[in-house]
């Protein structure tokens, strides 16, 4: 087995283990490269037929390319797609251009997901997060319990040794399952290349710019790059010293902090 077979089989083991234990499970798909890779792995784990729904949280501010990609792939791969939208807040005009910016994410992402989990009674959710994305994620587990407030108590997590995963649930809790936690950004691109996975073409350079991670239009900005193919991207990441999120300015929280500081004339 080569490196990518190892990564893949570890993920597939976790995917099957989680499905066996929870049954009432779903996957959160952002349409980005990581969760699309996860979607592919799930397809592989169940021999082409995904046995549970795929959730897309729609803030209504995503790139048009992302909506097209989402609809195309769900048709081609034939899975059940749940689209979660916080309709009430959208109707009130919630958006990143108005007022408290974090409120926008909280309402249109977190609360939209809370609504979906509640409506369908999911006990666990697959997420395509990776350990190398952010310092705090180094503490993540493959099976990660969340309380009803969605709080993650990272100082009190069940141990995970010898592939033994805790899945006991208290009332109101749900589990986050992270099958690709051990992939790095570079692994993802190498794997995308090896498997010939489709990706949203926002990742590829156009006029000297490309997106290194994608989300809502107002909160993403492209990085300077001439990487127009997957091979170029692999080469770029291999030699880049910038963090994945440097292109996104900073991560989400930092953007809000920055906006608030700027409003008072700092920065």
């Amino acid at each position: 087995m080569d490196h990518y077979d190892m990564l893949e089989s570890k993920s597939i083991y976790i995917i099957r283990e989680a499905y066996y234990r929870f049954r009432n499970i779903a996957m959160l798909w952002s349409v980005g490269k990581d969760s699309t890779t996860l979607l592919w792995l799930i397809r592989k784990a169940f021999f082409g037929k995904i046995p549970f729904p795929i959730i897309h949280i729609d803030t209504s501010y995503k790139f048009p390319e992302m909506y097209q990609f989402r609809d195309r792939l769900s048709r081609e791969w034939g899975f059940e797609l749940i689209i979660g939208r916080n309709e009430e807040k959208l109707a009130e005009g919630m958006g990143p251009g108005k007022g408290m910016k974090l409120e926008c994410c909280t309402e249109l992402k977190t609360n939209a997901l809370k609504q979906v989990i509640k409506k369908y009674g999911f006990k666990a959710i697959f997420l395509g997060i990776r350990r190398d994305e952010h310092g705090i994620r180094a503490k993540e587990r493959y099976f990660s319990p969340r309380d009803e407030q969605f709080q993650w108590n990272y100082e009190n997590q069940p141990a995970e040794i010898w592939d033994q995963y805790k899945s006991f649930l208290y009332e109101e809790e749900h589990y986050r399952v992270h099958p690709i936690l051990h992939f790095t950004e570079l692994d993802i691109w190498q794997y995308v290349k090896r498997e010939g996975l489709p990706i949203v073409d926002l990742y590829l350079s156009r006029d000297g710019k490309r997106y290194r991670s994608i989300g809502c239009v107002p909160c993403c900005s492209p990085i300077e790059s001439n990487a127009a193919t997957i091979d170029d991207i692999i080469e770029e990441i291999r030699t880049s010293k910038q963090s994945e999120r440097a292109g996104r300015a900073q991560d989400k929280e930092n953007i809000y902090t920055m906006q608030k500081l700027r409003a008072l004339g700092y920065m």
Partner: protein
Amino acid sequence: MKKALVIGIDGVPYELLNRLIERGCMEGLKAILNSGYRLHRMKASLPDISSVSWTSFMTGVNPGEHGIFGFTELKSNTYELSFPDSRSIKAPLFWQSLRDKNRIQSSIILNIPNTYPAFPIDGLIVSGFVAIDFDRAVYPPDYVHILKEKGYIIDVDLMKVREDRDGFYRDLMDSIRTRKDVSSWLLEEKDWDVSVVCITETDRLHHFFFDQKETILFDDFYREIDDCITCLYKTAQKKYGDDVLFLILSDHGFADLETEVNINAYLKEAGILRIDSTRDFYERIDNGTIAFAMDPGRIYINYRDRFPRGSVRLEEKEAVKKQIKDMLFGLNNIKGQQIIRHIFDREDIYRGRYTKHAPDLVCISNNGYDLKGNLRKDEIFTKDIFRGMHTWDNAVLMAPMEIKIDEGINIEYPSKIIMDYFS
């Protein structure tokens, strides 16, 4: 049983408070003062910025010991921008120390800047600026819901002032009334030994309206502030009697703003800061840079052993510092008046193990010239919508007359009064 109530009035200068009392806008506070309190002039932290100053108040120590030097920071040995928060505070807070020594049981801490995210406390804490997610700004979490229902907000929408100044002013007035109602309700409902309530609407008003400090706009606003202070004081008095130690303090002063001064634009012009504009934020600092500035007047020397594209060797330190100081003191306005009043060496103002993370120099400007550390502007002097700027040496402390207050105190001092009181 001893109790202490502290009211923070963010950004209220000593002179302005005195004048507002004279003008009859603060009759409640005047009565409190007449019952045995006195106002003292107090220095802010260096730099004179809320997150640093309030952290100095909460810990009673200087930034070299508590580790907070601004709203922004660079990660160790990089140019990567980070935002210090409550988790970055390296020294114990006075109510934690008092609790550990069993001098007090519970505290109510409301709206102090740099207490986000909220952290475990015996009592209740609601974070202040820069709190970006209300759910993480409250401990214990059961209060999230209660506070939301009562309409509590941490801060008004600061972007609104650009579109609707009158609306923004009205929001500030509403916010102060809600703060009064919710804070006094909490002080009444819950048992506490130490309470700190921070009013930050004052700082917001000053940033955008300080040029109108002699008008009815300020009079009306400060009547609300007076009402809030009086209401909190009376609530505490009603609940615990006359023995409550009562302090009021501000974290820095304010002055009229003539112009913003972009130090980095000046450093660029002088050739000691080089920029690579293809990168973001402080990553833009390029090879050959000798020094750069961060908000408000923090100067960092681009040492080889401190930064990835550093160019200054340690043995050049004194010469480089002299070069930078001469240059900064040489910065004049169009009338030829000097802009920078003081430049402090970090060795002279900070002590403690985190001094190594401190800026090398800290500048204090003459009133009117607001020092800025952004890297985007090419003009040295720019003007935005801000009408007030922070000042260092005219914060204010109100303390009981029977307590002897030393001369030349700074913001680290008030927590010592509280510690002494409970010891």
